[in-house]
């Protein structure tokens, strides 16, 4: 099915997937696009294309209905992490309800909803698919799961929603590509368990292609839920190392710690008062490794150890000068632990297979990790994000 006569409303159109989707719909599919924009100041990327921009809020049914007038399809990609948990939930869950109500009222049936693999929570090793049970471990995953349910219920009243559960989507402007570079910039990135966790990565163009398939597919069922992912099985070690190579002659490489040690390291970062910190240190004074991960403390102790080691080595005639090794110690980088919210994801041994997506909406990923990361590196250089 061609979209050349379609008029498609995209919520979240200024986001990184939304922006690339808008570009694809306009330039490849020759569709007309209405971009539902929360704040115009974020619209620079999509302003390059002939799109109609309508300002509004996804929880405001009136502004959505107005924007949807004359539209044939909706892609609901709006999400926020900026507010409180309650505010973010309102955007995700109430927003889903509002999108369904507005679409129904103007006679649109096909709505594509961008969900996430976070709805599964912690999963056992092995393949996960649409039959895997969902036990979200965070509010984001729970909100998304609840929003999915809103779309499933809407299917009973005329909508034919397609729910796409997206994995780690990387590429230009992606959090998952700027975040590693920011971490590399701040210090030595630490990954759990030798970095062997499976990174279910998908290049943004594959994500966009899956949305296009969802828009155009003719399905037998009222509602379709698909997991989608990229074509290659890669580890988080590969994911970070390949991003780190964007730094050219000085590629940044992650180092590794057991997941348990990283969890212990979080405790060292959670003090918010000097008194609490000192009390905690006194209580755990035997656990040197925690002290080592306090900001700055590790560097100082490293320096002392290096000097001590060099002084000891002097007598053996090894590494006679204490100056050079000390210099290395002083310039050593602090450890950058993964955010607590990402630790389980980075340690997971679960692997997504997109078989249902191919069967139900005809989507098969086509951008290999090698190709996707090469484009990402070109963008990182251009965007001055390689550090």
């Amino acid at each position, binding site marked *: 099915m061609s979209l050349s006569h379609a008029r498609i409303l995209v919520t979240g159109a200024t986001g990184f997937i939304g922006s690339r989707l808008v*570009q*694809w719909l*306009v*330039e*490849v599919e020759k569709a007309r696009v209405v971009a539902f*924009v929360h704040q*115009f*100041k*974020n*619209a*620079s*990327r*999509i*302003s*390059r*294309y*002939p*799109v109609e*921009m309508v*300002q509004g809020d996804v929880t405001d049914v009136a502004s959505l209905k107005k924007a949807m007038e004359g539209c044939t399809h909706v892609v609901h990609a709006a999400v926020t992490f900026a507010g409180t948990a309650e505010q973010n939930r309102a955007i995700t869950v109430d927003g889903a309800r509002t999108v369904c109500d507005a679409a129904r009222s103007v006679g649109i049936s096909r709505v594509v909803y961008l969900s996430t693999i976070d709805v599964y929570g912690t999963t056992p090793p092995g393949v996960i698919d649409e039959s895997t049970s969902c036990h979200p471990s965070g509010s984001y995953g729970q909100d998304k799961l609840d929003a999915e349910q809103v779309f499933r219920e809407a299917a009973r009243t005329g909508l034919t929603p397609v729910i796409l559960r997206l994995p780690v989507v990387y*590429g*230009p402007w992606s959090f998952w590509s700027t975040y590693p570079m920011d971490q590399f910039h701040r210090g030595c990135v630490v990954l759990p368990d030798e970095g062997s966790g499976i990174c279910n990565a998908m290049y943004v*163009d*594959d994500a966009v*292609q899956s949305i296009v398939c969802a828009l155009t597919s003719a399905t037998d069922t009222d509602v379709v839920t698909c997991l989608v992912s990229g074509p290659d099985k890669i580890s988080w070690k590969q994911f970070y190392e390949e991003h780190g190579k964007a730094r050219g002659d000085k590629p940044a490489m992650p180092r590794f710690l057991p997941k348990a040690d990283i969890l212990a390291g979080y405790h060292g970062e959670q003090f918010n008062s000097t008194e609490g910190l000192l009390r905690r240190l006194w209580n755990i004074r035997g656990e040197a490794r925690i002290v080592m991960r306090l900001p700055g403390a590790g560097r100082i102790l490293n320096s002392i150890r290096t000097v001590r080691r060099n002084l000891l080595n002097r007598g053996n005639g090894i590494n006679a000068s204490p100056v050079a090794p000390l210099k290395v110690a002083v310039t050593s980088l602090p450890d950058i632990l993964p955010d607590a919210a990402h630790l389980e994801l980075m340690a997971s041994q679960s692997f997504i297979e997109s078989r249902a997506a191919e069967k139900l909406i005809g989507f098969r990923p*086509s*951008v290999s990790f090698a190709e996707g990361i090469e*484009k*990402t590196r*070109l*963008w990182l250089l*251009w*965007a*001055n994000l390689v550090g």
Partner: protein
Amino acid sequence: MSHSLRIVIIGCGAVTEMFHIAPLLARKDCRITALVDRNEKRLEVVGQLVPHAHRATEVATVLDDIDAAIVAVPHFLHAPISCELLSAGKHILVEKPLALTSAECDRMLAVARASGATITVGHMRRFCPAVAFARDMLRSGALGAISSVDVADGVVFGWPVESDFQFRRDKAGGGVLVDTGAHTLDMVISWFNEVTPLSYRDDASGGVEADCVVELGLSDGVPCRVELSRTRNLRNTAIIEGALGRMEVFFYDNKVVVTFTGAFPVLPIECMPRESALTDPSQWRHMFDYQLDDWLESLVQGRPAMVSGEEGAKVVRLIERVQAMREPLLHPWETFATGRQS
């Protein structure tokens, strides 16, 4: 003019709220007598800051009670509103760019000449001390013969716009070239006078450009490259190479670093003229303050202001010539899997 100047502000958008109101209220030699905006919500918001000012939605209704006006409306309205004010003999300070086209600029200049009113253009970067210092350095010849100029000017767009006009060619005249680029090109013209466009590439694809590269020729064929962005944080400096030294002008940090070469080892000099860093947008108020000082003093003293209507028109003419040379700016990561290049 001996009495306190009566000022109207046309347009109650972000620039008015953030930068024009406070310095005007702080002055003794002028008063804001009216605010005009067709958006009544914005009129109410900004009106709270100036409770005594008359509020109106049409310029015509305030003409009798003013001496001068600040025109801070979307670009496509600059010419019609300015001509209405100039015809009534009112002096104007117009936000950049002066107008959408050179034809509109010519019309505005003609109306001003006929009425005797003056046009000043809000190229406020001229009032950045580092930029002014760089101009003096260049005029002094201290860098020797200039061999190249490279300007990178870009930040991720975050201006709190109330409408989409900045993203519409019919209303803004273009994207980053017309917006940030108007300041950048005015700065280059004010430094080198003679500027010839050589090539221009941008990434617009039926909309307005978010990134672009302009190649200019200065006198004696000196190349000048200008890169502009709304999607990236660029270097935000101008690097000027000369036979006797190199100068880097940090226009957001308000800093100039000059490195002289010669018989002695390299001697870098870091200049911090007048103010400290202007990186924080709240610090931009200094430049707006200097601009207002200059404009109001020019009206009181009957002297030309720093940036005249003619100079504003030069920038618009250069933008027009640059746009006429447009070629696509291709981003290699934007090649679609289908083999298409956006």
